[in-house]
């Protein structure tokens, strides 16, 4: 009797164990330092747009943050602190809203300093995507932490120095020897304007585009779409057609880099590529109002409006009572500040004549 082979090949399917939580290491095995992790949450009830802003901030801080953090009304800051210890969370980003404006507090967990920023203006990620012609969100955009660039902070004031240190340490370190270029896909930019004392917060995605290749060929190679050759006599027409360069190609001289390694099929090593930034994610205008020595407590080391003493934001859900008092004083002092600035401006203008 012939052997009947079982032609139906049973492929051994390994049962997929879905790891619901990424195994996140506390220590970066490349640099050896502790990876900073963060919680983004809110104190008090936030209106719709601010909740979306909170979500955007969470996405920004990926992958080292809790994306689906659920907070209950009765949670205090202390509860978060207790959870943060074992999980290795180092930073808290706390959003809150008062009658004047929303506030963002950036704090370092165990006992660290707290920077309080007043959000003057903000735009959500969806708004920005809607305003763009071709919004871009590749799949693994949020798999790697972003880079951070701070500009205008180097003037040497103590509070600015502290701000730079805080922001630099919210994101993990970069080891330039071992970092993979393909993992640097996002960039956060903070720009300090010393005249208005406002910090612009922007979040971009980085894209590399080969330079020196005509647009049609580039698009063909990237999109794999067969081009329309109806109107052409010969393929050589397609390849050698001198098209208009796009606007942005003109000013690319400063922004081109020579890659050291192959990044993808189109961006090859030792060819010039242009670095293109496209904005994603929230856009904010912040003003540093307060620096406290402790985690939302402790002595006030710096205050924009010069109020020393114990005008602290209450840690309960509605800290509105005290906030109003603080706001009144803030208004007075800000008016004085504005007057001072105007005088200086007048002097400067007349001198220039």
């Amino acid at each position: 009797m012939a052997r009947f082979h079982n032609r139906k090949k049973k492929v051994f399917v390994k049962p997929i164990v879905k790891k619901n939580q990424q195994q996140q290491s506390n220590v970066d095995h490349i640099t050896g330092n502790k990876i900073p992790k963060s919680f983004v949450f809110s104190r008090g009830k936030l209106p719709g747009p601010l909740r979306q802003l909170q979500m955007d901030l969470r996405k920004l801080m990926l992958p080292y943050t809790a994306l689906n953090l659920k907070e209950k009304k009765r949670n205090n800051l202390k509860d978060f602190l207790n959870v943060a210890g074992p999980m290795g969370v180092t930073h808290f980003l706390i959003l809150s809203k008062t009658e004047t404006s929303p506030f963002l507090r950036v704090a370092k967990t165990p006992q660290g300093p707290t920077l309080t920023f007043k959000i003057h203006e903000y735009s959500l990620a969806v708004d920005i995507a809607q305003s763009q012609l071709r919004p871009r969100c590749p799949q693994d955009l949020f798999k790697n932490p972003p880079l951070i660039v701070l500009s205008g902070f180097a003037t040497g004031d103590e509070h600015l120095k502290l701000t730079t240190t805080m922001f630099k340490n919210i994101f993990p370190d970069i080891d330039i020897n071992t970092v993979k270029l393909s993992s640097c896909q996002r960039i956060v930019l903070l720009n300090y304007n010393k005249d208005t004392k406002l910090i612009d917060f922007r979040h971009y995605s980085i894209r590399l585009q080969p330079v020196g290749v005509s647009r049609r060929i580039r698009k063909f190679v990237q999109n794999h779409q067969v081009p329309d050759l109806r109107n052409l006599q010969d393929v050589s027409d397609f390849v050698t057609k001198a098209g208009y360069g796009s606007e942005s190609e003109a000013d690319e001289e400063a922004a081109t880099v020579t890659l050291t390694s192959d990044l993808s099929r189109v961006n090859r090593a030792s060819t010039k590529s242009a670095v293109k930034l496209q904005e994603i994610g929230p856009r904010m205008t912040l003003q540093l109002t307060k620096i406290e020595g402790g985690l939302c407590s402790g002595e006030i080391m710096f205050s924009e409006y010069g109020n020393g003493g114990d005008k602290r934001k209450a840690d309960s859900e509605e800290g509105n009572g005290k906030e109003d008092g603080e706001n009144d004083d803030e208004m007075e002092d800000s008016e004085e500040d504005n007057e001072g600035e105007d005088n200086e401006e007048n002097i400067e203008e007349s001198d220039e004549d």
Partner: protein
Amino acid sequence: MQMGKKKDKALNESESTIDMKPMIHENAQFFDKLVELIPARFYLPDEKDKPWFQGLSKAEKASAKKQSRENIKKARRDRLDPEKSTKTTLDLLKENLEKEKSNMDSDGEEKEIEVRPIMSDLDGGEERSVTYEELRGSLRSKIEELRGSRNIPSSDKGKKRKNERNDKKGNLQKKQKSDGVVEEKKIDSINDEHNVEKDIVEEAANKLIFSRVKLGDNEDKREDSKKESTKSELLAKHSWKSAMDRAAGIKVHDNPKLLKQSIQKEKKRHQKNAEKWHERVETMKKLKAEKQQKRSENIADKIHQKKMLRIAKREKKLLRPGFEGRKGST
């Protein structure tokens, strides 16, 4: 020869050609203007002895060169100095002619020729002096104005500031204000204080700071802090330092309460450990004692059993039925 012909014509036809004179005057003016355009050293014969440097010794050559350089400088200064009236080619020509006239016997022709250049010269000269006067006067008035309204600390700083400001703003302003060079200097010297601060701040603000990058030896080295005199300064400095360190991830053990807590924790832990050790030692002892006791019991038991066996053996003999040797039976 031509001039002679003209002269004859004028003499012969003096009555019918009165209107020739203005024409001739015009022509003469035209030629004068042309002559004026030519620099004197090309037009007039060179009267001075040409400097002859060849045969001189080194020192003499050096001094001669120096002399010539100084002459050049002097000539340039004289040329550009508005106060000294420059001698145009015409003036020099006129002088030359006068000299010739004084040397040689002259004809009447040359007198007339002299007259015309003199006339045109006078007109030109007057105009020129007027314009110079006007310019100087206006400049002076402007200077006085500015001097009255502003206070000028120094002018050296002004120059420095001027250079920097011009670099920053481009040279457009400078080119447009070609008249008011002095004005600019005055303005800049006032702003020196503002500008020093501004420049430093601008340069600093333009620097970019990036993500924390790991290089070979990373750990930031702490600076040595000098001892400040006042307590509040010390406190402030300490609080800033600790905040910076905490933000950078370095642990700062600051809080006395927490430190006390941790000391107590440590103490309690130590206590507990000591207790546990004691317990262990106790149980060990107990166990040991138990075991030993049990062992000794067992050994005693064994010996006892052995004895009993012997007795039983002995008794067995006596328990035989019909045995008569037993002591207690009879």
